């Protein structure tokens, strides 16, 4: 057999049917569902009197538009309530487990799946959400799908897919102190562009990737989609196995040892060939801050807002000009001079316990700048409880942060947590698109420690100076 990449191995293991001319039919191990992209899919099933093929391989939660201010009173957001009610009805009717608003396991779908040990190496995983790429951190093939395919997977537990090409992104050497997984992925997207991996699955490799915690690996894989990749993945290793050991849905006892033996052979063969390879030097990565309106418009914190007139390609020059106009930034401005109005620590990219710990470490004993409104939205109710058990909520509250209930919140402006027009936000989320956090809102993507430091200083600062 020819040498195989991890993508090849997982793909082959899930082939239901392969025929000339048609894309392959893949079996899907796990299907995560949330309230926003599923209602029409369930309607489709109902219309044609179809059951869900594998309710036991389907799990639903409420995250996108849940209120984060309080759970003790009914939500006044009629649209959100209607979507949450619809999901509850659909899950009851079709026999699907649901972690609803008041369930202790509720949270952002890409936080709870790994946290509960449901996401495991070697799986195929889909969800009606582009950040499904997060789960690839465990050495699974995980990608986002649209509502038609959500319906298709609910009905068949399969998906017809053309196999993507394999791209290797190597991050060689070790990162400097203060550099996070967020800085690594922002620098990768800055290097290859927001279309740099279209049609590919990225496998991240190299020392800097191997050194990352599972939380860090999830941050990296989460933003694969921002480089245009179908998915991102990292070979499972001892870090992966230790993370999974003892989690509620992970195998137990000798079953766990058997599973580890299976997971160990998922890594790509040493001589496997990738369609493309990109290599970055980890030591050269600085804390990163986006200045524009896509995640590829990014600069090191000790850098400057670029001057569009320096950009030779006309299309890129026009994009940069429009971005600076939207962002209200002058070319040549030092990144550290950019003042912020709001700080958002949250999202499926950066709202896990490790993220909150690293932000709290910066905030401890300091105060949020008087001109800044800052909030922390834990990625799940369990993360919130764990953080509270460690006293992190007190650290944030005493510094002047809002401490919220779990959900997607201000990452995507589907609940009342939004920016006002013109407001500038340091955000640990994944997209700085125009209007993403609220119409006219200006988003700068950063790591949790960088967001925390900006909240305190009132402007971006180089976190390396605070160590």
């Amino acid at each position, binding site marked *: 057999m020819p040498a195989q990449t991890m993508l090849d191995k997982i793909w082959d293991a899930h082939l239901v049917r392969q025929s000339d001319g048609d*894309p392959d039919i893949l079996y899907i191990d796990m299907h995560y569902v949330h309230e926003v992209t599923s209602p029409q899919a369930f309607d489709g099933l109902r219309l044609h009197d179809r059951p869900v093929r594998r309710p036991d391989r389907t799990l639903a939660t409420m995250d996108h538009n849940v209120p984060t201010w309080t759970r003790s009173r009914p939500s006044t957001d009629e649209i959100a309530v209607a979507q949450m009610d619809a999901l509850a009805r659909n899950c009851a009717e079709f026999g699907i487990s649901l972690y609803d608003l008041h369930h202790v396991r509720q949270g952002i779908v890409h936080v709870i799946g790994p946290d509960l040990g449901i996401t495991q190496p070697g799986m195929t995983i889909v969800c009606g959400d582009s950040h499904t790429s997060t789960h690839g951190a465990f050495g699974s093939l995980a990608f986002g799908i649209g509502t038609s395919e959500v319906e298709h997977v609910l009905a068949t537990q399969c998906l017809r897919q053309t196999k993507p090409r394999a791209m290797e992104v190597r991050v060689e050497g070790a990162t400097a102190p203060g550099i996070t997984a967020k800085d690594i992925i922002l620098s990768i997207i800055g290097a290859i562009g927001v279309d740099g991996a279209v049609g590919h699955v990225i496998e991240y490799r190299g020392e800097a990737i191997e050194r990352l915690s599972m939380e860090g690996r999830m941050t990296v894989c989460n933003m694969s989609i921002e480089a245009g990749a179908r998915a991102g993945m990292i070979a499972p290793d001892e870090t992966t196995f230790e993370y999974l050991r003892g989690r509620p849905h992970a195998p137990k006892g000798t079953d766990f040892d058997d599973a580890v033996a299976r997971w160990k052979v998922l890594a790509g063969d040493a001589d496997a060939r990738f369609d493309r390879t990109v290599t970055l030097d980890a030591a050269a990565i600085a804390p990163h801050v986006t200045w524009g309106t*896509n995640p590829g418009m990014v600069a090191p914190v000790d850098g400057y807002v670029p001057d569009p007139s320096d950009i030779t390609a006309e299309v890129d020059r026009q994009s940069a000009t429009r971005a600076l106009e939207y962002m209200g930034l002058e070319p040549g401005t030092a990144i550290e001079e950019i003042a912020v109005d709001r700080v958002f620590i949250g999202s499926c990219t950066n709202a896990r316990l490790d993220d909150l710990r690293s932000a709290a470490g910066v905030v401890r004993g300091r105060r949020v700048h008087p001109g800044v409104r800052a909030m922390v939205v834990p990625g799940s109710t369990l993360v919130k409880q764990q953080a509270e058990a460690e006293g992190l909520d007190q650290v944030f509250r005493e510094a002047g942060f809002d401490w919220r209930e779990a959900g997607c919140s201000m990452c*995507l402006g589907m609940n009342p947590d939004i920016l006002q027009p013109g407001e500038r936000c340091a955000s640990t989320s994944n997209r700085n698109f125009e209007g993403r956090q609220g119409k006219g809102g200006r988003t700068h993507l950063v790591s949790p420690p960088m967001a925390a430091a900006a909240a305190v200083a009132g402007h971006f600062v180089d976190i390396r100076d605070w160590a």
Partner: protein
Amino acid sequence: MEKLRGRVWKYGPNINTDVIIPGRYCHITDPKELARYCMADLDTEFIKKIKPGDIVVAGGNFGCGSSREVAPLSIKASGIGGVVAPSFARIFYRNAINIGFPIFESAAAYEQIDEGDEVEIDPDTGTIHDLTKGTEYKAAAFPEFLQTIMSRGGLRGYAEEELARQSAS
């Protein structure tokens, strides 16, 4: 499939699904209502100025970002006949096919067709004819199975027909 013919509206590269249909409208299910907010955060005049059958020609990586199927759905519902771009983000590409909305990949068409040009597109052959300039471009033809999905009006129609065909044989 019938030929598409209309006037071109042109946009840059990396048009993301958040500007095609912002999150605050993603709960909408009625296509007519969705159409009202199509391109809301990209071009506020969009829905007022387009006519049924018009064509969007845009830069590469069109439809990047979120997996929201309402993005291609809102464009389809707006009356736009199809989108031409050098490349499409993969989830958008599949979503468009799955709802039966025609999209065409051509870098040359994006480079040379100007806003306001009248174009005619033959979905069966992928031929894009700029009637204003008298030029012609060939989009990469869809693989056969994608053409079949399109001609069945989307993924559900396709899957149902496949199942019927297999149980008959």
